[in-house]
């Protein structure tokens, strides 16, 4: 941990887009980091360097560029292993994002391990990517899909998980490490422990966790873990599925094609070793390679520092926002229990109108259902506004967001 080295100014200087002026020459205030984060020069330079100096397909040709590219591609896998304390590098599968990772599990593991009468458990605060694949699976197999509800503080009611597990029918619990709408941090160690006690598998959607806090997969003890590069300074189009080796070994391939095979004959094929069995076709070579620069960047700052910066900002924002008349905040009010995500509604103004009006000030937030319509139903709202922070977010930017709400009040004569 490098406790005193967090320089917000230095960090911001690495992100050219943060100097953008938008709309009527307003300074950009980017608060949509839960959707995707901005990229530092180090990542942008890495992708340029790759295409200018190394571009080649990987894993096959023997020429110099192919060797360089293959090595760089595999270096990213090693860096991920170190970053998340993963013991076996062959358990790290590159996919195009968290959504694909979850679908891979639903298809390759789910189709052979979930049957009629079984239960798959998910939660009310899941992203559609951790609901729809399980709907498809359970509808196809005749299994049942159950939800863990949330309470008024936006936290999971884990007694319901106990009830489901007590039936002895639960095959899988698919659960977010951090809610993308409420920012709630799941009591994931507790969930995994409960599941392990009865032999249920656990898939963790870590898309909103890995970018924001230290995640140690070895100590978690789950079975599958998924996340995306673009939410942690990396490029779009790269995601990771981590799964236990013995599970991957026994799973059928997700896609057939080049690279995932050992031998192909007219009527039979044998599979390549892990992780390549699940990496059919030319992967996203350039973006996987430059993802390493994002991991290096976060490692240099230190994930504990990332977390404490965001906690401080969230505390600051929650204190100020709770004083704004007509503002409803959804989710935990304790910054220790949440990631840097604040969902809110302002009086009865539709979130799209809020977002459009404050966008004139350069403030970029997300408005809508955040791919979490099940949660919207629970909260009994059509949509919410969501401000989400990252390593470069400043208190002044939080102030600009809150000041901009005054303009919304003015327009709507509140």
């Amino acid at each position, binding site marked *: 941990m490098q406790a005193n080295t967090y320089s917000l100014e230095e960090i911001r200087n690495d992100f050219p887009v943060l100097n953008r002026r938008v709309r009527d020459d307003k300074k950009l205030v980017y608060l949509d980091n839960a959707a995707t984060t901005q990229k530092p020069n180090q990542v942008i330079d890495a992708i340029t360097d790759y295409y200018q100096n190394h571009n080649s397909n990987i894993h096959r040709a023997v020429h110099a560029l192919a060797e360089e590219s293959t090595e760089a591609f595999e270096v990213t896998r090693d860096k991920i292993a170190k970053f998340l304390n993963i013991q076996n590098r062959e358990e790290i599968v590159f996919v195009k994002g968290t959504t694909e990772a979850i679908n891979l599990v639903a298809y390759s593991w789910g189709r052979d391990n979930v049957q009629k009468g079984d239960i798959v458990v998910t939660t009310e605060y899941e992203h559609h990517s951790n609901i729809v694949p399980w709907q498809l699976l359970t509808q196809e197999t005749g299994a049942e899909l159950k939800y863990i509800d949330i309470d008024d503080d936006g936290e999971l009611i884990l007694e319901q998980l106990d009830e489901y597990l007590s039936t002895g029918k639960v095959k899988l619990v698919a659960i977010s490490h951090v809610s993308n709408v409420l920012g709630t941090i799941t009591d994931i160690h507790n969930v995994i422990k409960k599941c392990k006690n009865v032999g249920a598998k656990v898939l963790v959607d870590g898309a909103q966790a890995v970018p924001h806090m230290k995640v140690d997969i070895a100590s978690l003890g789950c079975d599958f873990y998924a996340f995306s590069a673009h939410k942690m300074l990396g490029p779009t189009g790269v995601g990771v599925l981590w799964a236990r080796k013995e599970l991957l070994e026994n799973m059928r391939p997700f896609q057939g094609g080049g690279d995932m095979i050992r031998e192909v004959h007219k009527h039979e094929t044998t599979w390549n070793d892990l992780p390549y069995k699940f990496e059919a076709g030319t992967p996203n070579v350039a973006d996987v390679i430059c993802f390493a620069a994002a991991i290096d960047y976060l490692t240099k700052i230190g994930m504990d520092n990332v977390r404490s910066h965001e906690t401080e900002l969230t505390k600051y924002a929650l204190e100020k926002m709770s004083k704004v008349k007509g503002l409803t905040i959804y989710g935990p009010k304790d910054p220790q229990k949440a990631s840097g995500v604040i969902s809110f509604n302002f009086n009865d103004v539709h979130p*799209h*109108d809020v977002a459009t009006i404050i966008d004139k000030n350069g403030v970029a937030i997300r408005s809508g259902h955040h791919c979490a319509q099940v949660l*919207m139903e629970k909260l009994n709202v059509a949509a919410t506004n969501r401000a989400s922070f990252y390593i470069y977010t400043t208190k002044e930017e939080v102030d600009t967001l809150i000041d901009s709400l005054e303009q919304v009040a003015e327009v709507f004569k509140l």
Partner: protein
Amino acid sequence: MSGDPIYTEMIIEYSRNPSNYGKIEDAHITRHDSNPLCGDSIDLYLNIDDKKISDVKFDGKGCAICMACSSVLTEMIKGKSLEDVKKFEKDELLSELGLEHLIKTSPVRIKCALLSLKALKYGIYSYFAEKMNDVESAGNLKEEAANLY
């Protein structure tokens, strides 16, 4: 914020007090539509008598633009003949609220503005094509609705 090109007095007023807001029980035409990305979600209800729109209402949840445009659309088509309503163009609706610029300036918000018109075109199509079994009168309303934005 004076002179805001979107949030004019008229839009704010309609969003606060929408016209023809509510449900028609057992309406001759009911059409639900939504914009999945922003959460606008409305139902449009139409009664047809003597080949005219004798009554029209809408309900649902949406942003100010969606509420205002739905209100104005229902005002504009009430009492009109189906033949006239079939020819109703999006420019007529947008200009009524001074929102023509949205087509160029905001490809996202144009969907909010035109959601009710899309529901109207689909609704009348299904009235002719499915209820009256009159494919000829239904014309290409379905394609128009699909390509509205």
